[in-house]
C-alpha cells in the first residue's frame, strides 16, 4: 500500500501550515485515501486503477490546496505562490516566516525572555550612548547654516585659544572680508533688583552683530540695533525664553518693561527663542559693560568671537586672512600683540571637540557590550538548534530549500532582536536621562540629547544588524543538518561544528569582557590616584559661594571695600565659622585669571620681558581659610590697604622659577595695570588647573594680591562676583542658611549663588573621569555577567551532551574529582583563550583612554593581573555548577540512556 500520509504531506507543504495542523490534516486525509483505496479494490477494481482513482480524488492537488488555503486563511492570509512560483521570490512568504517565528518564540517563552533581555540590555545601552553621540557630535548646531559658523581666538604664547581683546575684535571685524558678519560675547552675571527679592541672574554681554551672525530671530520683539551697542546709550536687554517663562510667566507685555540689572535700568526689547543655544538668562549690548578691561588690548576679558563665513570662503582662506590681519596688528601694537596670532576653528568642533574622544570611546565600549550580548544569544540559538534538528530535517525532507530554512531562522533572530529593541528603548530612555544627569556639567549640548528620529533609526538598524549577526551562525548551522541522519538519530547526534562555534563565541565574549574590565579598572585607579593628589590646600570643611553686593553700595569704591569687610565680619562671627575670606578665583573651578608682570619697578618692557602668572585677589584670611601653608615671610593683614605699600604673596613655584637661589621677600614686581608691589611672603603652591594637569600647565606661578589694595578704578567692575570661602566646624553645607542671611546684610539685597562645598569643587574637577569610570564599570559589570552566563550555558550544555561519556568514565573508575577537573578544564580553556586575547587587546585598546588615565599606564601589569584574577574567578564560578552536576552523573543511569 502506498505511503498515503507522506504523499498528502508533500502536497500540504506548500500551504506552510503549522507542523501540528499539517500533521493532523495529513493523518485524516491519509485515512480517507486508505478507506477509498480499500473500497475500490473490494469492488473489484484493479490495484493500479484503484491507486489512480484514489490519487485523483484525494490528492487532486489543485482542488485540495485551493480548498484548504481558503479555509486556513486566518492562519495564512498571504497568498502562497505555489510550486515553482516560490523560487526566485525571496520575499514571498515572509509573512508566514514572521508568524511562524512569533509562534516558535512564544512556545519557548523562557528562552525568548532570556535572549530578549540580553539583547534589550545591549541595544538599550547602545541607543542611550548613541543618543548622546547624536545630540552632541552628529546633529548640527541649532543655527541656520551652522556649518559656516566659526569660533575665533587669539593665539598667545601661553594659550593656543585665548579669549580676545575687545579692540582686537573690533579691528578683526572691520578689516576682514572672509566673514559675512562677526560677533562677540562675554559672560557675566547681574543683580536683578526691584522685582521682589534680589537675585543673581546669569547674563551675556553681546555685540549687536552676534544674533545676526548666529541667524537667530527673536521669539518676541527685536534684536539689538547697532546704535544700542554704543557706550553711554540707554541700556536695552533681551531675555532668554526660559527666563521669560519662569520669571515673568511668559508675559506677552514684557516688551518695554524696565529691569534693574546692577546699577543699570534696562528696557526689555526682545525675548530669544527656546532653541537659542546659550544658557544665560539676560543679554545686554557689550558696550554697556563699563569694565576697564573692555578698552585695552592687554586685557583678554573672556571675550569669545564668532564669525559666519561668507558663502564660498573656506575656513583655510579665512584663517589665512585673519593671520595676515593679526600680523598687521602685531606690527601696529607691538606691546600687546607682538606674539599674538589668530585661531579659527569650526564652531561645532570648538564646542564639542573636547568630548569627542570620550564619547567615541564610550560608543566603542558599548558596542562591545552589544557584541557580547549577541554572542550569548547566538549560543542560546545554537543550543536550541540542536533541539530543533528534527523540525528542520522534516522540512528538508518535505522539500524545503536550504535558504528557506536559513531565512526562517534569520526571521526568528531578527524578531528576537526587534523585541529586544522594543524592551531596550525604555531602557535607553532611562539610560539617556541617567547619562545626561551623570555627565559632567562640562558636557556641551547636553540639551540636544534626546531620543529623536535618528536615534530610533539607529536602534532599528542596530537591531536588524544584531539579529542577522547573532542569527547567521546558528541558521547556517541548522541548514547544514543532514536530514536523514537527524531523523534517524532523533534528538541526539553529533554536531562538532556547532560546539566549535560555541567555543569561539565564549572566547570572544570573554575577550571583550576583559577589555572592558581592564578599561574600568584603569579608570578606577586613575580616579583613586587623583583623589590621593594633594591639592595644596585643605578642602574639608570649606564652603564656597559667590556673593554680590547691594546696588546701593556699588556706587563708590570705598563703599564697596567697606561692604566687603562688613560682609566678612558678619560671616566670621557666625557660630561654628572659624575663618572667612573673599577671593577672585577658586582653585580647580571652571574659571581662571592671569596677569602679566615684570621684575622690578621700571617701565613696561616688550612682550618678551613680560611673564604671566595666575592671579588671585584675596582678603587677608584667604590662606588661613584654605590652609595654604606660609613658607617664608608673612601673610596679608588688614593693614595692607590703600594707604600702605602695595604688597603681594607669591607661591613656591614662582619663588623657584622667578627667583632661583634668591630670597624673594622684599623684592619688587610690577603687575600690569595695577602697579608695583613688594613680595612679603611665599606660600605653598595650589593645584589651580586641576589635580592632574596643574603640573604640566605652562602658567603655574601664582600671585595673591590684597583685595583692600585694588585701585579705585577697578573696584566696581574688577571685583564683582567674588567668591566667599569659609572654614567651619562640621558639614560645610549646613552653614548655607546662616551664611546666606549674613551675606544678605541689613538691606537684605545681597544674593549668594553658586554655593558649593570645596570638596565638591574638587570632585567636580574629576567629573569627566568619574563619569567615564562609572559608565565603564557599568559596561564591564554587564559584560562580566553576560560572559559568565555564556560560559555557564555552554558548559551546562556540554555536560548534558557528555552525560554518557562521563558515565562511561566514572564506570571505568574515574573519581569525582577527575570528572570535575575534566569539565573545569574545558570551561577554563575557553575562558583562558578569551582572557589571553583580551589581555593583548586591552594593552592596545585602553590606550584610547589617553589623557583620562592618571598615574597608570594603558598596559599596567598590576591592573591586567587583577582583571585576570576577577575574570578567572567568575569563569570558575560559571563552570563549577555544571562540573558538580557532571560529577554527580550515575554511571548506571547514564549508560542506560545509551
Amino acid at each position, binding site marked *: 500500500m502506498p505511503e498515503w500520509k507522506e504523499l498528502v504531506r508533500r502536497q500540504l507543504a506548500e500551504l506552510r501550515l503549522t507542523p501540528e495542523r499539517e500533521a493532523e490534516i495529513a493523518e485524516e486525509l491519509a*485515512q480517507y485515501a486508505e478507506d477509498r483505496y480499500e473500497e475500490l479494490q473490494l469492488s473489484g477494481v484493479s490495484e493500479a486503477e484503484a491507486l489512480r482513482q484514489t490519487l485523483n480524488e*484525494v490528492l487532486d492537488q489543485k482542488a485540495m490546496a485551493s480548498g484548504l488555503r481558503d479555509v486556513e486563511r486566518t492562519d495564512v492570509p498571504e497568498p502562497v505562490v505555489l510550486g515553482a512560483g516560490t523560487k526566485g521570490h525571496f520575499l514571498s512568504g515572509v509573512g508566514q516566516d514572521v508568524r511562524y517565528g512569533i509562534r516558535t518564540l512564544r512556545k519557548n517563552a523562557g528562552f525568548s525572555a532570556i535572549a530578549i533581555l540580553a539583547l534589550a540590555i545591549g541595544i538599550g545601552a547602545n541607543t542611550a550612548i548613541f543618543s548622546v553621540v547624536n545630540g552632541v557630535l552628529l546633529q548640527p548646531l541649532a543655527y541656520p547654516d551652522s556649518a559656516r559658523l566659526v569660533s575665533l581666538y587669539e593665539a598667545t604664547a601661553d594659550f593656543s585659544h585665548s579669549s580676545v581683546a575687545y579692540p582686537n575684535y573690533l579691528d578683526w571685524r572691520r578689516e576682514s572680508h572672509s566673514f559675512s558678519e562677526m560677533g562677540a560675547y562675554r559672560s557675566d552675571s547681574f543683580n536683578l533688583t526691584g522685582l521682589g527679592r534680589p537675585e543673581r541672574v546669569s547674563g551675556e554681554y553681546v555685540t549687536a552683530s552676534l544674533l545676526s551672525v548666529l541667524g537667530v530671530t527673536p521669539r518676541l520683539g527685536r534684536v539689538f540695533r547697532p546704535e544700542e551697542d554704543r557706550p553711554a546709550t540707554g541700556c536695552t536687554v533681551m531675555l532668554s525664553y526660559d527666563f521669560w517663562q519662569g520669571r515673568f510667566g511668559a508675559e506677552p507685555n514684557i516688551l518695554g518693561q524696565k529691569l534693574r540689572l546692577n546699577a543699570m535700568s534696562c528696557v526689555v526689547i526682545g525675548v530669544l527663542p527656546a532653541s537659542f543655544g546659550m544658557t544665560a538668562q539676560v543679554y545686554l549690548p557689550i558696550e554697556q559693560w563699563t569694565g576697564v578691561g573692555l578698552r585695552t588690548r592687554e586685557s583678554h576679558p573672556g571675550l569669545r568671537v564668532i564669525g559666519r563665513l561668507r558663502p564660498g570662503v573656506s575656513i583655510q582662506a579665512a584663517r589665512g586672512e585673519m593671520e595676515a590681519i593679526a600680523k598687521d596688528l602685531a606690527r601696529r601694537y607691538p606691546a600687546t600683540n607682538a606674539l599674538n596670532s589668530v585661531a579659527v576653528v569650526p564652531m561645532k568642533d570648538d564646542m564639542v571637540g573636547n568630548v569627542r574622544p570620550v564619547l567615541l570611546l564610550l560608543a566603542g565600549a558599548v558596542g562591545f557590550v552589544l557584541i557580547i550580548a549577541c554572542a550569548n544569544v547566538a549560543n542560546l540559538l545554537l543550543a536550541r538548534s540542536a533541539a530543533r534538528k528534527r523540525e528542520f530535517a522534516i522540512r528538508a525532507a518535505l522539500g524545503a530549500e536550504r535558504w528557506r530554512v536559513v531565512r526562517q531562522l534569520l526571521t526568528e533572530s531578527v524578531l528576537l532582536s526587534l523585541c529586544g529593541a522594543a524592551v531596550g528603548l525604555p531602557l535607553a530612555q532611562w539610560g539617556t536621562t541617567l547619562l545626561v544627569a551623570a555627565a559632567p556639567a562640562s558636557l556641551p549640548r547636553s540639551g540636544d540629547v534626546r531620543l529623536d528620529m535618528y536615534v530610533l533609526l539607529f536602534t532599528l538598524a542596530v537591531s536588524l544588524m544584531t539579529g542577522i549577526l547573532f542569527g547567521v551562525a546558528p541558521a547556517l548551522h541548522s541548514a547544514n543538518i543532514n536530514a536523514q541522519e537527524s531523523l534517524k538519530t532523533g534528538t541526539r547526534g553529533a554536531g562538532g561544528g556547532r560546539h566549535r562555534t560555541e567555543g569561539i563565541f565564549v572566547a570572544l565574549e570573554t575577550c571583550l569582557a576583559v577589555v572592558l574590565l581592564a578599561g574600568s579598572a584603569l579608570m578606577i585607579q586613575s580616579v583613586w590616584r587623583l583623589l590621593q593628589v594633594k591639592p595644596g590646600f585643605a578642602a574639608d570643611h570649606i564652603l564656597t559661594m559667590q556673593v554680590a553686593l547691594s546696588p546701593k553700595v556699588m556706587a563708590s569704591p570705598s563703599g564697596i571695600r567697606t561692604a566687603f569687610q562688613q560682609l566678612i565680619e558678619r560671616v566670621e562671627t557666625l557660630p561654628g565659622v572659624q575663618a572667612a575670606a573673599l577671593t577672585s578665583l577658586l582653585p580647580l573651578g571652571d574659571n581662571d585669571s592671569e596677569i602679566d608682570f615684570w621684575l622690578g619697578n621700571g617701565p613696561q618692557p616688550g612682550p618678551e620681558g613680560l611673564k604671566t602668572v595666575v592671579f588671585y585677589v584675596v582678603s587677608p584670611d584667604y590662606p588661613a581659610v584654605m590652609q595654604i601653608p606660609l613658607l617664608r615671610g608673612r601673610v596679608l593683614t588688614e593693614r595692607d590697604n590703600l594707604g600702605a605699600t602695595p604688597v603681594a604673596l607669591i607661591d613656591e613655584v614662582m619663588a623657584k622659577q622667578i627667583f632661583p637661589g634668591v630670597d624673594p621677600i622684599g623684592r619688587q614686581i610690577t603687575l600690569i595695570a595695577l602697579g608695583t608691589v613688594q613680595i612679603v611672603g611665599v606660600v605653598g603652591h595650589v593645584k589651580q588647573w586641576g589635580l592632574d594637569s596643574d603640573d604640566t600647565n605652562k602658567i603655574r606661578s601664582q600671585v595673591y594680591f590684597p583685595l583692600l589694595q585694588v585701585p579705585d578704578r577697578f573696584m566696581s567692575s574688577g571685583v564683582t562676583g567674588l567668591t566667599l570661602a569659609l572654614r567651619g566646624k562640621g558639614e560645610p553645607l549646613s552653614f548655607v542658611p546662616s551664611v546666606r542671611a549674613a551675606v544678605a546684610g541689613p538691606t537684605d539685597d545681597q544674593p549668594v549663588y553658586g554655593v558649593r562645598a570645596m570638596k565638591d569643587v574638587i570632585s567636580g574637577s574629576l567629573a569627566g573621569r568619574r563619569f567615564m569610570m562609572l559608565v565603564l564599570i557599568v559596561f564591564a559589570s554587564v559584560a562580566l555577567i553576560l560572559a559568565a552566563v555564556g560560559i555557564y550555558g555552554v558548559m551546562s550544555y556540554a555536560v548534558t551532551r557528555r552525560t554518557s561519556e562521563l558515565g562511561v568514565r566514572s564506570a571505568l573508575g574515574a573519581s569525582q574529582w577527575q570528572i570535575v577537573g575534566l569539565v573545569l578544564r574545558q570551561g577554563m580553556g575557553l575562558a583562558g583563550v578569551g582572557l589571553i586575547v583580551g589581555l593583548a587587546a586591552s594593552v592596545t585598546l585602553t590606550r584610547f583612554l589617553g589623557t583620562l588615565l592618571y598615574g597608570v599606564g594603558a598596559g599596567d601589569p598590576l591592573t591586567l593581573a587583577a582583571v585576570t584574577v576577577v575574570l578567572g574567578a567568575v569563569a570558575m564560578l560559571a563552570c563549577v555548577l555544571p562540573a558538580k552536576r557532571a560529577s554527580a552523573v550515575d554511571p548506571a543511569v547514564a549508560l542506560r540512556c545509551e
Partner: protein
Amino acid sequence: MSPEWKKGSAELLLLSLIENVPRHGYEIGKLIEQRSLGALRFHAASLYPLLYRLEKRGWVQGKWVEKAGQRRRRYYNLTAQGRTVLAAQRKGWESFVLAISRVTGAGNA
C-alpha cells in the same frame, strides 16, 4: 448534478448528516453518495476543506476518537451553534424548494 446546486446545499447536507450521530469524513462522503443514490458525490478535495471551514466557524467540532482494534479517526459532531444554523438552513432550504416548485410545478399542475 451541477456544481452550483452542490455548492449551495453542501453545508446543509453535511450538517444534517451529523445532526444525531458523530461521523468521520469518509463516512460522511459515503452517506451523501448512498442517500442521494449517487447523484451527489463529494471528493476529499471538497469535503475536507468544507468540514474545516464549518469547524472554524464553530458549527461542527472534530474529535480524535480511538476505538478498540481500529486506528484513531476524527469524528465530527454538531455544536449548539451548528444546530441553530442547521435549523435555519433547513427552513430556508424548504421554503426555497417550495418556492421553486411553486413556480416550476404550478404550470404542470
